[in-house]
């Protein structure tokens, strides 16, 4: 795969049965980053996790009733940076108001964003006119 450029733009129906597919597509991408010097198996697993969490959130929290319920996932490599975007069309939420800490031991929910923040270098969420975008970045060393 070309050293410094890669983009993939994927749309799947907003249903949880697609999570395993998007997760394994993310793994495929990591396996093909020929120039990545780190542990490619670990990277593949981590991308599977963060994509599963982010697309899962877009499905659970981010679907609008008016729009066709599809989720858009973009994976891009620019130079040594990996950028993952998950687009949703829901109400959106305020990422900054969520604590960055690990949820309490016995909370059943709330570990998705914690995992994304732990495994990626940065996570942001922005509302645009065309919908909301969760963006995760990671420097590939």
């Amino acid at each position, binding site marked *: 795969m070309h050293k410094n450029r890669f983009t993939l733009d994927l749309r799947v129906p907003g249903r*949880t*049965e697609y*999570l*395993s597919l998007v*997760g394994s597509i993310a793994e495929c991408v990591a396996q093909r980053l020929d120039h990545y010097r780190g542990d490619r198996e670990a990277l593949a*697993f981590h991308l*599977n*996790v963060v994509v*599963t*969490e982010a697309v*899962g959130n877009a*499905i*659970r929290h981010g679907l609008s009733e008016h729009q066709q319920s599809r989720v858009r996932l973009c994976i891009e490599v620019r130079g040594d940076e990996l950028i993952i975007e998950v687009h949703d069309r829901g109400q959106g939420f305020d990422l900054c108001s969520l604590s960055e800490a*690990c949820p309490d*031991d*016995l*909370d*059943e*929910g*709330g*570990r*998705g964003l*914690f*995992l994304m923040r*732990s*495994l990626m270098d940065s996570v942001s969420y922005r509302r645009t006119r065309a919908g909301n975008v969760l963006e995760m970045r990671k420097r590939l060393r």
Partner: protein
Amino acid sequence: MNVEIDQSDARSVLRLNEERIDAHNAGELKNSLLNALEDGCRLLIVDLAAVHFIDSSGLGALLSGYKNANLRQARFVLTGLQARVRSMFELTRLHRVFEIAEHVGDVVVNP
């Protein structure tokens, strides 16, 4: 959700025959755990040996089983964690919450 339950007086073993636990099947997992506990078992061993991947909703389902077992004063033990699955417990620090054993056979029934 493909689960296999092996019940005896002393313990129930719930074997999860799914490669992947995520938001698609975590709800079913939660129900399977509650059903097994409602059957009145004192020790529920959940064997994850077949599971390659678990996400936060899968961890949440296991936590729900764990809390329900606590309420009923039943013991709740996880076994067979593969490396990737174990790392998810470690990342979320849940390895300190759950009782975890390597194999089903390692769980001493009346400690």
